[in-house]
């Protein structure tokens, strides 16, 4: 009797049906993300996973660490890593030095003027990176505009080699990365409550002291987020150093590409890729502990 009564009660309260309906609805909604998820899985996650696997396969086709050993033993590889970090640090540092005053200036402007000036940041941001790199190549070359004007002004007598070396690469990269730093920094400066500054001024802090003790600390999260985006993007950069470095500046990305294109050495390329990816992810995840990852990802746009 009681055994028969139980399903009857369940039917009247629809508990099972309701649970099923709820699960079905959740899955249907979640399922809307599945085409996108499929794309990311097939074109990104699985191939990168496979590269990871390849990096542990030696020339003879068996498991080996030789790809990593070669990377850490070889002088040329060490130099590539050194160059990559050097350029990334230099670019990030210069971006901070140039970007902070610019963002500060923009944040002080009234809304209309700020929007107008922001166009000067957004225009290069949306212009093709290749076009901008090309522009710098034209300006920096031996007979380029910079050399021409500098000689006319008497800054130097002989054409100086500005492109096809480290100088050119860093100039081009700073130009390309600057918007990535300025936009999040400007956003965080705009979000600073002006009352803090008034309060500090009221309490007797002079302008200089006010800036160093109140404004600067409050703008640091934005600066940190921006600098981080710049640094991470620099680590994996390819186009600008390839064009403006003229083959003399070799970064990790370029070595990966040449390993595939010239030497068809997937093992070596994969190992480099794994190290590059690991460095990127470690930086991003460490940063995620301090800055919200969404903001970081959306910071540039």
């Amino acid at each position: 009797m009681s055994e028969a009564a139980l399903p009857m009660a369940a039917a009247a309260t629809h508990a099972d049906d309701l649970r099923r309906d709820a699960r079905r609805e959740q899955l249907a909604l979640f399922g809307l993300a599945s085409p996108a998820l499929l794309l990311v899985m097939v074109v990104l996650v699985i191939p990168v996973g496979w590269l990871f696997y390849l990096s542990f396969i030696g020339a003879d086709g068996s498991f080996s660490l030789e790809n990593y050993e070669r990377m850490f033993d070889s002088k040329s590889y060490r130099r590539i890593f050194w160059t990559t970090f050097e350029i990334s640090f230099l670019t990030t540092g210069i971006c901070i030095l140039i970007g902070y005053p610019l963002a500060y200036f923009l944040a002080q402007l009234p809304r209309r003027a700020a929007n107008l000036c922001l166009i000067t940041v957004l225009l290069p941001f949306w212009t093709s990176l290749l076009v901008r790199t090309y522009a710098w190549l034209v300006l920096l070359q031996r007979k380029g505009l910079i050399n021409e004007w500098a000689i006319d002004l008497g800054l130097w007598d002989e054409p100086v080699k500005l492109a096809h070396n480290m100088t050119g690469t860093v100039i081009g990269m700073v130009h390309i990365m600057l918007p990535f730093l300025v936009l999040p920094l400007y956003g965080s400066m705009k979000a600073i409550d002006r009352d803090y500054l008034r309060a500090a001024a009221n309490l007797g802090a002079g302008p200089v002291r006010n800036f160093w003790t109140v404004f600067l600390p409050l703008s640091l999260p934005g600066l940190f987020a921006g600098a981080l985006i710049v640094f991470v993007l620099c680590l994996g950069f390819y186009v600008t150093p390839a064009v403006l470095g003229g083959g003399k500046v070799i970064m990790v990305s370029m070595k990966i590409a040449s390993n595939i294109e010239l030497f068809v050495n997937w093992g070596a390329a994969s190992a480099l890729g794994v190290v590059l990816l690991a460095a990127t992810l470690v930086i991003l995840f460490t940063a995620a502990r301090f800055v919200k990852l969404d903001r970081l990802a959306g910071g540039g746009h």
Partner: protein
Amino acid sequence: MAGWLSRPASETQVTHGQRLWLYILAGIIMLLLVAPTLIVIPMSFSDSTYLEFPPEQWSTRWYDNYFGSLEWRSATVTSLSAAFLTMLLATPLGVVAAYGLHTSQMRAARLTFVILITPMMVPLILVAIGAFYVYVKLKIVYTLAGVVIAHSLLALPLVLIVTSSALKSYDMNQEMAARSLGAPRWKAFLTITLPQIRFAVITSALLSFLTSFDEVVVAMFVSGGDNSTLTRNMFNALRDQIDPTIAAISTIMIAITTLLMTLAQVFGKTKEGG
């Protein structure tokens, strides 16, 4: 002028005069941001092989060169097709995913969001060689479809982030109201939600287009032959010598970008007005 200089410029009573150094510095930086790109435009109309500024002789020979070259024309068509198709693929994919993750209360939604924005965190070169490897296996390397799929992967995070933030500020009660009035969920989304996040969707579409149109590294690996993109050809040409034709192409690309971004602004304005 003198009056303006002595007026306070901020909450901390610094005058514009004391700030002058900042204004000059910011002016120089802004000039340096814009000038290099813009200077390409007059240069592209120079008659000389050594891109002069200002040009001594004006001519459109580099544009003639570009339009006269079958290879450049074909690459342009490839790039425009790839960008257009990427827009058509990545936008609905990303918008629908953003909606699903926004409304689903499953715990996996948060993680899925992070997975879906990884394409913008992984270094491009890895995306490029990874896609290249898969495409060789799937036999779609050097095809337009391959370029579109890879570029959609890169555009997806932008669509997702832009649309998600629009959905966050959208009042879901409206969709509920529509459903209570008799609209099935999909219809409520199409007739009520979508029109109100349209600015985000249009922005996403334009960003997808630009992402594909400007992309170099992935295109280097997965495009080629008849389906070589404009950027791939430009990049290869740049490595060899400074061909002034590139200046003409760059000018055209700047024009396209400016046009698209202006469109985005115009759509943004109409939204605020309405």
